[in-house]
């Protein structure tokens, strides 16, 4: 009996110690607040039940606050996070700095080759994957089928910019507060500059030539910006220079936009039951100018592991779980196929159930038509479709965005906005020592 008691005591102590050891393995995940991420937080019981001994702590932040906190932490090796949510802009820069753990060994059944090639290319440096895509998005045209019909036009699957301009002017009915086209105008590198940089690619423009010289004095940029400002003045909503994603979403859902070119993720917002135009929304690829590049961007919120984390193994397990095929099925089981995080895996688009989602094919086609490693008509020394993956880009592009927003608002001319953009970009690049 005595021995039995001792054994029981030893077992209990062992159990407590084991529990203590297990508790020590806490993975802290920094993330943004969007629908797919919130859904993932609700589903983490599946992960913790499969991986006893790993606890998850979440830090959800607004995108810019997250970027600031995560950048500070990783640059100082603060070690506050074990997994961080970052975008296609950060991954190439941070990976080259040696700040991220390569993710080539996420397990035998992870099937890394299943990741969409465009997305994988944007998240890899020298052939190694440095962040696992959680969801990917591109941009496309969303349009009102009823207004298009009333204008006597038919949207092709792959429209040109000329068609978009004609259709926008034909659909505009300012007396009834209907505007042919809604586009981003609010200044910011992730706001109007995401749209305009991607658009400029399709006009044959580029940020830099191969020697890193700014190219805003090129005729292609003048054509891009003149086209945008003229079109918005004639067929855009009033005050468009203040409009970002959410403002245009509101206008579109209220039936005031004929067309809206923006993130593919918007498709579910304009077609859900709260949208007044849900029954009459069509989708098309982002427009082109016949030069071989379309005006759509590519973005993927991805999970990366900072170099120097104490919990590398546990963090890898989590990243593998959250970006696996099984996770997509888990979401489908719980929330339906329409809510599965899109744009990361080829197998998802081969799934007959997922093919029934109305915007699935268009999202895939849009993503596939963007190539972050070869984004422009003329060759460039940088990676990125709607951005240039260098640390200076954020500040520079926001300043350029302010110039372009002012041109849209009529506070300055297109010529002087471009001249200012050229001067400030060249100055920043000269100071940073880029031009060869």
């Amino acid at each position, binding site marked *: 009996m005595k021995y039995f008691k001792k054994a029981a005591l030893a077992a209990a102590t062992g159990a407590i110690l084991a529990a203590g050891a297990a508790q020590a393995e806490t993975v*802290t995940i920094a993330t943004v607040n*969007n629908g797919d991420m919130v859904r993932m937080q609700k589903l983490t019981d599946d992960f913790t039940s499969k991986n006893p001994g790993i606890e998850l702590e979440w*830090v959800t932040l607004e995108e810019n606050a997250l970027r600031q906190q995560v950048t500070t932490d990783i640059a100082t090796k*603060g070690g506050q996070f074990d997994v961080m949510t970052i975008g296609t802009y950060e991954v190439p820069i941070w990976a080259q700095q040696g700040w991220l753990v390569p993710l080539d060994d996420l397990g035998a059944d992870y099937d890394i080759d299943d990741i969409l090639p465009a997305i994988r290319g944007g998240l890899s440096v020298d052939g190694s994957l440095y962040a696992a895509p959680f969801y990917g998005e591109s941009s496309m045209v969303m349009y009102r089928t009823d207004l298009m019909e009333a204008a006597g036009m038919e949207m092709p699957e792959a429209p040109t910019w000329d068609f978009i301009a004609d259709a926008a002017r034909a659909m505009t009915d300012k007396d009834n507060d209907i505007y042919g086209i809604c586009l981003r105008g609010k200044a910011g590198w992730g706001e109007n500059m995401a749209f305009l940089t991607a658009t400029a690619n399709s006009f044959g423009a580029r940020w830099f030539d191969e020697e890193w010289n700014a190219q805003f004095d090129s005729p292609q940029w003048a054509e891009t910006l003149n086209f945008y400002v003229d079109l918005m003045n004639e067929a855009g909503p009033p005050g468009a220079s203040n409009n970002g994603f959410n403002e245009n979403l509101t206008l579109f859902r209220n039936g*005031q936009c004929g067309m809206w070119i923006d993130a593919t993720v918007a498709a579910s917002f304009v077609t859900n039951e709260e949208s007044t135009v849900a029954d009459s929304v069509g989708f098309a690829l982002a427009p082109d100018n016949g030069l071989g590049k379309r005006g759509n961007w590519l973005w993927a919120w991805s999970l990366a592991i900072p170099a120097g984390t104490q919990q590398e193994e546990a963090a890898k397990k989590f990243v593998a779980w959250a970006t696996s095929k099984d996770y997509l099925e888990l979401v489908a089981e719980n929330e339906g196929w329409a809510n599965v995080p899109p744009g990361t895996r080829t197998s998802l688009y081969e799934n007959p159930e997922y093919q029934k989602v109305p915007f699935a094919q268009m999202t895939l086609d849009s993503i596939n038509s963007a190539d972050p490693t070869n984004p422009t008509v003329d060759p460039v020394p940088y990676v990125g479709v709607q951005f240039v993956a260098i640390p200076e880009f954020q500040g520079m592009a926001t300043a350029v965005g302010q110039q372009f927003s002012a041109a849209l608002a009529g506070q300055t001319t297109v010529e002087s906005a471009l001249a200012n953009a050229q001067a400030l970009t060249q100055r920043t690049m000269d100071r940073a020592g880029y031009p060869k």
Partner: protein
Amino acid sequence: MARQVTLNRRLINTAVAWSLGLLIFFPILWTILTSFKTEAEAISLQPSLFGFDWTLENYQEVNARSNYPRFFANSVIIAVGSTLLGLCIAVPAAWAMAFVPSNRTRGILMWMLSTKMLPPVGVLIPIYLIFREFGLLDSRIGLVFVLMMVNLPIIIWMLFTYFREIPGEILEAARMDGANMKSEILYVLTPMAVPGIASTMLLCVILAWNEAFWTLVLTTTQAAPLTQFIASFSSPEGLFYAKLSAASTMAIAPVLILGWFSQKQLVRGLTFGAVK
């Protein structure tokens, strides 16, 4: 006739004061109203002030998604802690400068205030590295210390202005009666300065409660206060205004109530010594 003029003037003054007050309070009122709307109504282009379907779903969602009590407790600990620690340093400092001034007192006071002129992000990396070395990242004690430092110049300045209002003769009289420095501060100065200290405390708690740079950068999970709670409901793409408003309302409610009940002290504290 004279009475008529005074009445008119009073009416005008009241009307102006009320409109100004409403104008300043309107964004907060709008936030509170939005928190009771659905997401679709929150972004409606014809927003209505009261005539919408009131709903509590945002509060339910916010509560389901985050652990409000933990954020709230952290906010209380950080705001009150930094205020108390700040007072322990500021009371002797302000006492010395008010009652035993030297040639350099003005200069020291200005120098202290000048630290408020530096944008906080300018010292972000050094502070972050110090915190990392001392293991203070994501700790309440670290934030208490930083917020104390941030608010210290304001506390010292406010207390200095109060203490200067206290006639030096009273302290002299106390000394004549044989009071030493300890009893002078404890039994003579403190009781006279209590209203001033109280309003300084209140202001300092409010400032620390609303601080949204250091609290966002230096915390992750364990020490995260209500500013993190609000930030977690903002989103670049999607519909979030109603939930964000609900989170904001829950975060500002405690300090709003505190401010409401102590507005007399606050106003007195902020205008004390202003008109001379």
